[in-house]
């Protein structure tokens, strides 16, 4: 269980966001939406305890995150960064095994059971055949799946994903989303709570997620995607005209207008973001 109350976030003297509150339990999917520079990544870093909160507290498992060791935190909350290339050519399974680190002692090495967990995490995402491939040479989509497998191997009840579908092609995006959905719906037994950020509001609908809509470091709306993501709120946050429509299959999609908006407003908006 992750809970943040009245967080102010930022780096040292630079405050990036304030009055942010959220709650995440098992089986929840929380989707962070907002324009570039609205503070999503900073919020993530604060939630993970990688960056101290400027005000307010982050409670993880009922205790302040600042009072917990890195290993304690890592056993409760896993982090899936955007797919990256490490400087050394580790095998994919080695990258997944690194998810076990928080369960090993100071001088511990992954053992038989850790290897089995890593294996089954990869199998669960259908990437078992990548185990002995060079991670640094995998495609972006494959790397993202390996990093999700690593989070699974971490066996933490909560997973934070930083734009898990960024830089993925259309098919891989859908695949990753399907996996995220499956993770949270296995909730009854395993209870995975997922926080993810995305630039695509359609994904919030697809995941039937709880949404936190951010702008300029403030939460401007939160609630179930159905309620929060309306044409009006999206238009306000992104500074373009957006209409939300329902497809024949019943899913909602967001359609930005491609008509040029009043240019000056956009420019000044973009400037305040940067």
């Amino acid at each position, binding site marked *: 269980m992750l809970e943040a109350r009245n967080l102010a976030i930022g780096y040292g003297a630079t405050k990036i966001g304030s009055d942010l509150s959220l709650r995440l339990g098992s089986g929840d999917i929380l989707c962070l939406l907002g324009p570039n520079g609205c503070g999503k990544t900073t919020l993530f870093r604060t939630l993970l305890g990688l960056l101290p909160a400027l005000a307010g507290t982050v409670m993880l498992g009922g205790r302040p995150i600042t009072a917990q060791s890195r290993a304690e935190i890592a056993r409760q909350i896993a982090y899936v960064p955007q797919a990256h290339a490490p400087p050394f050519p580790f095998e994919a*399974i080695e990258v997944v095994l690194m998810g076990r680190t928080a369960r090993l002692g100071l001088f511990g090495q992954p053992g038989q059971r850790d290897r089995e967990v890593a294996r089954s995490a990869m199998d669960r995402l259908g990437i078992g055949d990548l185990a002995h491939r060079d991670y640094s040479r995998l495609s972006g989509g494959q790397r993202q799946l390996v990093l999700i497998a690593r989070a699974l191997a971490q066996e933490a009840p909560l997973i934070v994903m930083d734009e898990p579908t960024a830089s993925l092609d259309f098919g891989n995006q859908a695949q990753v989303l399907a996996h995220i959905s499956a993770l949270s719906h296995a909730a009854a037994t395993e209870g995975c709570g997922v926080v993810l950020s995305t630039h695509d509001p359609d994904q919030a609908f697809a995941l039937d997620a709880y949404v936190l809509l951010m702008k300029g470091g403030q939460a401007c709306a939160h609630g179930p995607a159905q309620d929060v993501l309306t044409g009006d709120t999206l238009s306000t946050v992104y500074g373009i005209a957006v209409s939300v429509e329902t497809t024949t299959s019943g899913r909602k999609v967001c359609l930005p207008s491609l008509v040029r908006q009043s240019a000056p407003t956009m420019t000044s908006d973009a400037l305040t973001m940067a």
Partner: protein
Amino acid sequence: MGRGTTATIGLSKPVLTLAGGLTICLALLAFGAVMIGPYGLTPGQTLAALVGRGDRQAQIVVWNIRLPRVAAALLVGAALAAAGASYQALFRNPLVSPDILGVSAGAGLGAVAGIFLSLPVAAIQASAFVGGMVAVGFVTLVASMVQNTDRTLTLVLIGVVIGALAGAATSLLKVMADPYDQLPAITFWLLGSLAAITTEDIRPALPMVLVGLVPLALLRWKINVLSLGDEEARALGIEVGRTRFLVIASATLITASVTALAGVVGWVGLVIPHIARMLVGPSFGRLLPVSVLIGAGYLLIVDTLARTIAQVEVPLGILTAVIGAPFFVWLLARGRRGWS
């Protein structure tokens, strides 16, 4: 053990075979190196001398001259390769060498100061060791006071700064040194050599290198995770600051110990981990032992060349540079990634 998973971590069968093969090669190389020299020995004579039989003269050559030197070459090569592998993982860069944090520059200054003050050999070695440790200690201290989110880059940059300062102080001492007596000794030391090595010189260095290797071996898994970068390593449950300090302290202890013994021997710590990584991959549990074995063998070959290819001793640093530099260019040409 599941199919295919054996090869992933730890010392699996192929790696053990490789390590065993390398150890045998190393023993043969060492035996050969003991035979070769101005006073040439046959394999039979060498064996006899090793077990304390045969020609008295051969026994003296083997035990008092060749064996200390062979042992020192093995120790220095193994130590520099281990430190290089550690620093490369820690700084997430395959083009990093053990002197990145100024250990060689500090040790150089320490030794040069010792020579300048006409101290005895043991004191020069102690001064070099202290110089190397102090330089790196100073770098980590200054880096911890600088407010910067990228700790790794801060460390490297401060290392460059302190290294340059130590280099300047060394140059000043060279200018002030007696040009006929001290300056050649300084120059020779800064190029690295095992020419005057005795068993007494090895005695303090060996336990320090072993003490430094133990934490590196124990932390082998954490070092893998550290090579993903600070933030990810922390998110995976590692206390990065503490672990990094331990790795830096161990690798610096190792480097300073052998630099005090052999002088500044470049390139070994940069090049050898690459060869090891090509053979067994980047996982530190495999990389460390294989680097140690190859590093030991490599420096033994180079040192044997240094004492046999010419009438006079060729400084080690010159040979390792002549061999290492083209290799480095070749690595760059292969398009390795730099700072990520």
